[in-house]
C-alpha cells in the first residue's frame, strides 16, 4: 500500500545512470478563496483561503475556519485559480484608469462576480455582477458600471459558475452562532475576575 505520509513519498527513488527526469509536482492540496456575508444585506467580503482537495471539501472546511465566531448569514468558496485579478494601484491612482477595452471578444457571455479593494490591506468586497465573455471584458464592463467617486485599488473577477454557494436550506447553518459566547474570549471577563481576586488578596 502506498503511504499517505508525505515524508515517505517524497524520498527520492533510487535510479540508474543517465536517467534525468523533470521534478514531479508535490502531492499537496490546492487553495480555495473564502467569501463571507456577515449580515443580511451586507456585501460578501473576502476572508482568506483554506487548503482542500476539492471545492466541496473547501466549503465544509471554510465554514468553521472562517465563521465559527460572531455572526454570518452566508458563505461561498472558489478555487484560487478561478480568481482573476487586475493590476494594483496606490495613492491617488484609481485602478480603473489601467483597465481598457479588450480587443478581441467572443460572443458566448457568462456571468462574473466583481470585487473592489477600496483600501490597501483591507478585504475585497463584492460590488456586483456583470455579463461578459472574458475576465478582461468583465472588468471593462465593471469600469462602466461600478466606477463612481470611490477610489478603487484592485479589482477581482470570478466566473459565477465556478463558485460553491450556500444553498437556501444551508442558511440554517449559522442559526445558533450568535449564542456561542463561549467562543468569545472577552465574554469570560478574565480581567474583572482577576481584579476581584486581587482585591480579595489584599
Amino acid at each position: 500500500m502506498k503511504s499517505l505520509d508525505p515524508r515517505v513519498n517524497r524520498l527520492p527513488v533510487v535510479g540508474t545512470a543517465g536517467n534525468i527526469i523533470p521534478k514531479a509536482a508535490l502531492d499537496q492540496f490546492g487553495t480555495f478563496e473564502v467569501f463571507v456575508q456577515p449580515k443580511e444585506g451586507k456585501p460578501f467580503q473576502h476572508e482568506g483561503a483554506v487548503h482542500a482537495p476539492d471545492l466541496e471539501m473547501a466549503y465544509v472546511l471554510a465554514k468553521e475556519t472562517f465563521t465559527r465566531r460572531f455572526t454570518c448569514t452566508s458563505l461561498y468558496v472558489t478555487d484560487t485559480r478561478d480568481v482573476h485579478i487586475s493590476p494594483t494601484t496606490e495613492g491617488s491612482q484609481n485602478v480603473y484608469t489601467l483597465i481598457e477595452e479588450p480587443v478581441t471578444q467572443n460572443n458566448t457571455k457568462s456571468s462574473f462576480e466583481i470585487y473592489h479593494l477600496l483600501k490597501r490591506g483591507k478585504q475585497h468586497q463584492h460590488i456586483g455582477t456583470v455579463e461578459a465573455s472574458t475576465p478582461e471584458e468583465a472588468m471593462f464592463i465593471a469600469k462602466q458600471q461600478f466606477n463612481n467617486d470611490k477610489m478603487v485599488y484592485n479589482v477581482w473577477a470570478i466566473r459565477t459558475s465556478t463558485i460553491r454557494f450556500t444553498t437556501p436550506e444551508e442558511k440554517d447553518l449559522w442559526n445558533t452562532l450568535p449564542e456561542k459566547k463561549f467562543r468569545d474570549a472577552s465574554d469570560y471577563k478574565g480581567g474583572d475576575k482577576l481584579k476581584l481576586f486581587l482585591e480579595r488578596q489584599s
Partner: protein
Amino acid sequence: MDAIKELLYKIADDQLILGHRNSEWTGFGPLLEEDIAFSSMAQDKVGQSYALYQILQQLGEQAPDTVAFMRNANQFHNCILVELPNGEYDFSLIRHFLFDTAEALRFEMLAQSSFQPLAELARKIKGELLYHTLHANTFIKKLGTATEESITRLQQSLEFTLPYALGIFEESPFEGELIDKGIFEGEKVLKEKWILKVEAVIQQTNLHLPDWHIVTPVTGGRNGQHTEHLQPLLDEMSEVFRIDPAAEW
C-alpha cells in the same frame, strides 16, 4: 415523566461523551482546517448536552454541572459507541458519520415531539446538525473514493464500528409509552431511517456494507453497562470540576 427523563438522559449522555472524545483531537487533527472543524463540532455536542441537562433540571433533576461531572460510569446512559477511545482518525470519522447521521434523524423526529421543550430544542439546533452531517458525508464520500489506503482504512473502521453503531438503537423500557404519547417515534423507526441514509452515502463510495442481519449490536450502554474506557474519560473530564465544585468560572 420517567420515560421523558430516560430519553433526555440517553441523548444528552451520548452528546457529552462523544463531544469529549472528539475534543481529544484538538491540536492533533490531520490538517489545520479540519482540526478547527472537528473541534467546533465537538463543542456543539457538549453544548447540545448542556441544553438537554437544562431541560432535565426543569423536570427536577440536579444542575447540569452536577449531572455531567459527579456521576459514575454506571450512571451514564450513553451507548458504547461514543465512549470507545479514538485510535486512528479513520475510526473517528466513521463514528462521526454513523453517530451524527442517527442524531440528525433523531432530532428531525423530535422536532415533531409532543414534549415542547424537546421539540423547540430540535428545531433550534437543526442548522448545527445539518453541518455535522454535511461534514461527515463529504469526508466519507471523498475518502471513500480517494486512494487505496483511505478506502481500506475506512472499510476496516466501518466493519469494526457497525456493531457498536447498532447499539445506538438499544430500546428503552419506555418505548411504548414514548410512542403512545407522541413524544418520540421510537428506536425501531429511527434505525430504519438510519439504515437508508447510511446506505445512500456508502453507495456513492467504494466502501461496502455487510448484510445487516449478520451484524450483532453491542448493547448495554443504555442500562449503565459500559466498557472499561468510560470511567477514565469521566475522571479526566471532571478532574477540574471536582477540585472545587462550587467555583465560579
